[in-house]
């Protein structure tokens, strides 16, 4: 196998993954999606490190990826605890809810047009009625309601 071509292909894949993660972190407004994008950038770096490890025939790159995984696990634990706390505070995962944290004297961000919820096409299958309709079991309904 051509090692230089393999290195270059993997570095290209890693670069595209990293850029994708950066775009996601910059554009998305949901806290959790932003965090997922940051993790995507980390994956791009990991692919590059493993490619270099292969080219240099050396375990150093793979060791770094092991530590990246360990740090990502710590990061995920802390971030999720923070998200739960923040969600309890404001009741939303939108980053705009914490816009008071930025510099002073900036005009507040207000959504000019809120997009309409997308109409979902829920088509449930319809069965042809067959047999007689069973009498309602009042006792069972009351029991269910209490549970």
């Amino acid at each position, binding site marked *: *196998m*051509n*090692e*230089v*071509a*393999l*290195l*270059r*292909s*993997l570095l*290209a*894949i890693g*670069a*595209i*993954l*990293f*850029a994708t*993660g*950066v*775009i*996601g972190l*910059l*554009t*998305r*407004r949901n806290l*959790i*999606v932003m965090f*997922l994008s940051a993790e*995507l950038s980390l*994956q791009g770096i990991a*692919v590059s490190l*493993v490619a270099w490890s*292969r*080219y*240099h*025939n050396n*375990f150093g790159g*793979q*060791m770094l990826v*092991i*530590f990246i*995984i*360990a*740090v990502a*696990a710590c*990061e995920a*634990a*802390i971030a*999720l*605890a*923070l*998200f739960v706390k923040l*969600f309890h*505070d*404001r009741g939303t995962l*939108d980053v*705009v809810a914490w816009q*008071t944290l930025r510099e002073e004297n900036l005009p507040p961000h207000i*959504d000019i047009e809120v*997009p309409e919820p997308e109409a979902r096409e829920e088509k449930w299958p319809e069965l042809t009625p067959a047999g007689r309709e069973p009498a309602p079991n009042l006792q069972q309904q009351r029991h269910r309601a209490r549970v």
Partner: protein
Amino acid sequence: MSDMPITLEAWLTQNAPRVLSYPVATLLVGVGLWLVLPRGRRGGRAVGAVLLLVGLGMLAARLPMLGDWKYETVLWLLGGITVVSGIGTISMRSPVYCALWFALALLGTGALFMFVGAQFLGIATVVVYAGAIVVTFLFVLMLAQPEGQDFYDRLSWEPLLSALTGAVMILLLSLALESSLGGTAAAELAAKSPTPQALEKGILAPQHVASIGGVLFSKYLIAVQVAGVLLLVALVGASAIVVYQRNPAAGSADAGQGGRS
């Protein structure tokens, strides 16, 4: 001359005709990303996906061949899955779909790791990331946003500008790769690249986990200890963040900030 590091500008003036497809590919990727990102209105996502595929295909066409069509097929299949699911991660409206596409991207990178002979890392990525981190994310999503997407998932900050920024970043990285690993530089690097026999004694040794463990617990022993301490501190910190309750009597100073509703 070949020992002198040449600047990107000088290299560009020499090789301008060969790299003419890069700006076109960048434009296609940028516009395609803008179309697939949430923009607050419907439509254009299929067009954006087609533009993205064409642009990424143009970028991929510049990459050299591995020399064996079987390796080639597997690499492009895995790389394609990884990149497409990475783009799916940032372009889906519903956060649950984002998490699922991210899990697919992780499976793709895990498979890529295995492809280049890092089996332990492939398994570790799938187990730790896809098995633990993504599942915890899904737990929090179900806790916080059980109804699926909200209006802010259908909006983005400056989608056109950020998509173009990302595309230019991809362009610059590809040009750097082309200038440092392509053309005449490739021949020099190929002479220095490891032979299959050397790889068989090095990172592709049959006892892969044993050799990883040997390096990890000798050369990187202190780093392993530090990582262990870091994991412990993160565990304690995460528990403390969730458990800690603001004292209502002492928290009167925070009342003006409208903290807890």
